[in-house]
């Protein structure tokens, strides 16, 4: 009993440090925007105001944050579905099969992760322009249906490698095709990895502002990540209050998704399926 209390005290204490920044951001968003900097060292606002939320939600020139949130949700969800499914397929292919060019594919996949993303900005833009995709959401969505982020492939591969090969072989002897093995046996077992990947992917797509900046032109179609930056202008004044208010809201979807999905990570389906 005493042990459990100590456990919770320690975990809670460190947890507080972990969420302090978020707490700070939310508290700052409730302060008068003029006092955010001068009272940065004190967490609790002297006077709570929701004015920042009203100002922020108003958005820019007729487009409210409601629109930005819908855009972000659309892009992030659609792109995440693509990433998870395509990465799972590729991961299975590369983890379980021996075929010509597999090594080459694996090395290329790692190599694509080693080039700083910033350097590809211009070349990618020129290429998507050739494809006629500039000005639409396509560059923000379609590539993710082709497992372009090696991280996810490698993540799931690593997971599949941890599954006993005997499972596949038994199914094969029973006359299952590889495609049935994938959908019937592998997919349920790698669900935790797919969920983990889904959480990351959603979060990364949600935070990505660079591709939105380059490829989305109409302000009506801006995602939240890009819109948040519009509150600041180093040349004149910035509305930090409104920015923090909207930034606090923008953390919500990722947090909710995490809380909703995390239990599947550990309480998932797989325990029964595995035999030592």
């Amino acid at each position: 009993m005493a042990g459990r209390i100590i456990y919770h005290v320690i975990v809670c204490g460190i947890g507080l440090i972990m969420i302090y920044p978020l707490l700070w951001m939310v508290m700052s968003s409730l302060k008068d925007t003029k006092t955010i900097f001068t009272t940065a060292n004190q967490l609790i606002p002297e006077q709570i105001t929701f004015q920042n939320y009203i100002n922020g939600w108003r958005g820019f020139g007729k487009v409210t944050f409601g629109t930005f949130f819908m855009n972000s949700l659309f892009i992030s969800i659609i792109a995440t579905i693509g990433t998870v499914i395509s990465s799972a397929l590729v991961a299975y292919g590369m983890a379980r099969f021996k075929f010509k060019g597999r090594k080459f594919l694996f090395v290329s996949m790692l190599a694509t992760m080693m080039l700083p993303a910033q350097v590809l900005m211009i070349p990618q833009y020129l290429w998507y322009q050739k494809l006629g995709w500039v000005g639409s959401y396509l560059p923000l969505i379609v590539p993710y249906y082709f497992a372009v982020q090696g991280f996810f492939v490698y993540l799931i591969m690593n997971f599949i490698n941890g599954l006993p090969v005997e499972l596949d072989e038994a199914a094969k002897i029973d006359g299952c095709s590889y495609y049935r093995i994938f959908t019937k046996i592998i997919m349920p077992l790698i669900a935790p990895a797919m969920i983990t990947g889904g959480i990351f992917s959603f979060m990364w797509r949600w935070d990505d502002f660079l591709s939105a900046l380059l490829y989305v032109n109409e302000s009506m179609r801006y995602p939240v990540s890009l819109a948040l930056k519009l509150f600041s202008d180093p040349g004149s004044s910035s509305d930090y209050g409104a920015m923090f208010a909207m930034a606090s809201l923008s953390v919500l979807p990722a947090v909710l998704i995490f809380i909703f999905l995390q239990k599947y990570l550990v309480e998932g389906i797989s325990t029964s399926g595995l035999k030592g």
Partner: protein
Amino acid sequence: MGKRIISLSLAVFLTVMLLAGCANKGTSTTSDTGAGSKTETKTETKTEVTSSADQTNAADNAGLTVSWWGNQTRNERTQQVLDLYTQNNPGVTFDGQFAEWADYWNKLSTASAGHTLPDVVQMDYKYLEQYVSNNLLVDLIPYIDNGTLDVTGIDENILNSGKVNGGLYAIPIGVNAPALMYNKTLLDQNGITVKDNLSLDEFMALCKEIYEKTGYKTGAAYGDGDIFIEYTMRSLGSILYEKGKLGATQEQLQKFFEVYEKGISEGWMCDPSIYTERTIGTPEQMPLVYGSSPATMSWCAFSYSNALASLQNAAPEGTEIAMTTWPADDQKAANYLKPGMFFSVTVDSKNPEAAAKFISYWTNDVDANKILKGERGVPASAKVAEAIKDQMDQNQLKAVAYINNVVTPTSSVINPPAPEGSAEVSKLVDQLVEMVCYKQITAEDAAAQLFQKGNEMLAD
């Protein structure tokens, strides 16, 4: 479960492809109309000089993309003016695009690589030369000649700042001037007055006096790049950037670094560490208005006249911010009026005629400027500036008075726009000032390094 996921993924996949189809259609139709208007304008440019009656036709039917950087206020007011213009000219529709300053330039340069620049872009003096020398902007003189673009209200000197190699590539949309913002309340309390047009030595003596009396230090153009060194070089009769080399001698450069060296050794210069704790350039975090003790604060800030409102806004309750000139030994040679921002028409515009007409409207229309309220700086047209005086707040009126009464009588023409490579030199200046303030090198070393490396950077 597996099947469901697969069928779901297929469904999503198909939707995406469908969307792809739609978007492609969308872009292709717009580019179709774009091509249509392109041929139109081409014939237009041919007839340009002879008849201007037809042109108004082309200029009255267009879809224009206008892009700018700025904050929420600017975004809203600009959008309102665009709407107003469409109301008055139903044939012209706008796509207003805005981004944050750094993002804006990334987006613009990327678009230039793909030749998809917006029709009208908000331009900064820092970037003007680059965009002109890479042939990305349209010379607007023909549109002035044919009457589309009316610039008669703009002062000759201001207008000329948009000129590069004889062509006019940018129309100023807000006037600005270097201004030393200071904490008037603090100085009044201690019986210190600041006069305009201080010399460098007088300025340093003042800094020392203030430090001794109040403990407040001096934040002198730290991390702001080349603005103050350029000013100091002007007062010494040199232009910092010439084509392919630095225009100042090593001895002249040294004078600039000596200010920092002296300030640090006498103690009145802000410690460089305080800047690592703030985002440099944001008014809210300048040591003039923000800090927990006099040792981390400054009595002044090197800024521009249109920043008064934001600084006053960020200052603690009861603190009055006032402005005077930056210090220089020869104020007439050093000081200048600076267009805060410009509008330019890009070569990718399918209808430069309509774009020029819009800029003309922006410059001269009183109703539009009543909406804008001089948010980008004092309107370039004197007539318009006078007409919207009632719309301005007290800070803006102070800025107008400062420009008219202090700067205009004692100033000269602004330096030509900085050439390619200057951005890197500007960063080098920051780093050298930083090293002088950390006492890593002397002012003499800093000047020698700037002279040598700066010339190399500009040469290639």
